[in-house]
């Protein structure tokens, strides 16, 4: 039962990673940019969510507002930071992206203070359900549900809608897609919009789960997100999702059984190193 509970905890963590890493892998697949600043969109979502929740007392309202704001800021980062340097080598965009992350983190600190914010009322955190000895609070349940719903919606979008097909065509060959009349620029904005909405939902949910929203909360997700998309085989959506869950479960066991040697973040990177030694192309790369 204890082991099962650790697996469930790991799946919950994995779902938060999945919502983040899906966006990272979308952007990487499209532009070959390691979008570290994605983590700042996650933090932004958390801040917007907590401000809305604390002002209105309505947790539900926090999600659409956070998604809306993040859905504007994400594409803006593309327009203002990445688009002017798309012709440069990839590391230029990476450096710019790290710059955005650091600047935004201190921006949050200046705007909202260094102590972080906590939810005035977090009923989801305290309402607990018992599933045969395994207790989960409503935040944890929503994390899993949100990941399943949003990622399924994305799967439907990319396989069954015209925009989704356009998106996939652009990923596999931008010039050809463009010559078939697909608006490549629009596809990019759409990708940043979708990625940023997912990050915002993850941000609000992680804020609720931690019971704390703080300026640096994106830091860990930023580099762990990179580890996950590498594990998943860069740009591979299904691989990324599996890698997220696997990493969450490994961390859940690791924080209890390996805690005297390694902390949670170190476990993630040890796993990354081991996988890359055995399979340099990642767990699920095509070749």
């Amino acid at each position, binding site marked *: 039962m*204890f082991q099962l*509970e*650790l697996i469930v*905890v*790991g799946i*919950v*963590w994995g779902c938060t990673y999945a919502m983040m890493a899906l966006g990272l892998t979308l952007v990487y697949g499209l532009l070959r940019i390691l979008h570290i600043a994605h983590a700042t969109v996650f933090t932004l979502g958390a801040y917007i969510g907590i401000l809305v929740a604390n002002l209105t007392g309505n947790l539900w309202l926090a999600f659409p507002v956070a998604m809306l704001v993040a859905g504007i800021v994400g594409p803006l980062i593309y327009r203002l930071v990445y688009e002017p340097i798309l012709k440069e080598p990839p590391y230029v965009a990476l450096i710019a992206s790290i710059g955005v992350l650091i600047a935004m983190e*201190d921006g949050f*600190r200046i705007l909202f*203070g*260094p*102590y*972080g914010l*906590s939810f005035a009322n977090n009923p989801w*955190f*305290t309402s*607990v359900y018992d599933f045969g000895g395994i*207790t989960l*609070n409503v935040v*944890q349940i929503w994390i899993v549900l949100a990941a399943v719903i949003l990622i399924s919606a994305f799967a439907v979008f990319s396989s069954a809608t015209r925009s989704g097909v356009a998106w996939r065509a652009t990923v596999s060959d931008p010039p050809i897609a463009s010559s078939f009349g697909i608006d490549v620029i629009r596809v990019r904005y759409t990708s940043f919009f979708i990625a940023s909405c997912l990050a915002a939902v993850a941000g609000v949910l*992680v804020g609720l*789960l*931690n*019971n*704390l929203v*703080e*300026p*640096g*909360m994106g*830091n*860990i997700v930023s580099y762990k997100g990179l580890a996950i998309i590498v594990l998943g085989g860069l740009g591979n959506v299904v691989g990324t999702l599996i890698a997220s869950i696997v990493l969450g479960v490994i*961390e*859940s*066991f690791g*924080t*209890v059984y390996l*805690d*005297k040697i390694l*902390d*949670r*973040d*170190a476990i993630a990177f040890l796993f990354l190193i081991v996988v890359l030694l055995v399979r340099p192309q990642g767990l699920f790369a095509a070749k």
Partner: protein
Amino acid sequence: MMFRSSTIAALALLASAATASAQDVRIGFHVPQTGFAAADGKSAMHGAELAVEQINAQGGINGRKIALVVYDDQGRADQAQPIANRLLGEGVKVVISGSYSGPTRAAAGIFQNAKIPYISAYAIHPDITRAGDYVFRTSFMGEVQGRAGAKLVGDFIKKKRVTMINLNNDFGQALGAGFKEAAPKFGLDIISEYNYGMSDRQFGSIVASVKRDNPEVIYASGYFFTAGPLVSQLRAGGVTATIVGQEGYDTPNFVEIAKAAAEGVIITTSLDRDSKDVEMRAFIDGYEKKYGIAADMVAATTHTAVRIAADAMRRAGPDDTVKIRDAIASGKVHAATGTIVFNELGEIAKNVQAQIIKGGKFHHYAVIEDPVLLAPPNK
């Protein structure tokens, strides 16, 4: 008033034959204003500024006002070194660390070599004061506070079965080592132990483990931003064991995060909120009045550090660093965190306060008095 202060300045001018001027006496201060430790940095800054304001209102140092020379060390060791050198270049005669162990350790050796008295307000690494005889510390060492925690659990809370949850940095490890060392003396049975990292905010797997272990007491180290989420998640997960923390919890921010889950949490610290003592009240009430928020431990011990520097400069004069060092070493200062006397290593020996959270506020729970148990190392 104008006349009076200018008279004092004139007298000071006469008294000091060398470079006498009415200029401020400057005290070096490095503190994390940005980066991961910025929250504690802000409290430290508040504590130091309040001390400066109060000291100046009481006539400063022999009529001269004191002023802080502030540098942001971002909580990083690699920033502390250039900052230490810059402070030396500015000619300050005493420096206070309002920062964590990393930068404080890095700077301590530099100030020791330059023979500039250096006071660590709340960094707890044991090697800091071992840098030499110019380095002092106004907070408890981690081991000392850990031993106090064991006595608190065994003698006051009177429970035996303990699960330890340690933060894996120097602070958490030192607390854990002290707790474990003293545990047998108080008949404690440590049934399990877990470590977590500084950036962890999600403790699902540890909560599941604690539920399985079913202890009577949880001894958990951390700062408000880790302990707040940890305590709320333990309580939300249905764990009812008494939770014992330390001075890292000692801020209203902890209660702000953990809310109802914070009720009944007991901590070891150096600040007694219910004290009637004049110095402590001047700090606690002055802080609340100036900043509109309740004081915390970091602010209190930084306030104390500035008081000690000012007291030594008052007695030894503000210019001779050898005399200032001797005055700090031999001084006995009654400050916000109690009566401060340093041993030969530059560590303090005093009672540990136990506080309990009731109605969202810290209140007196017990005073842990045991000079032998709580003696800091002296070499």
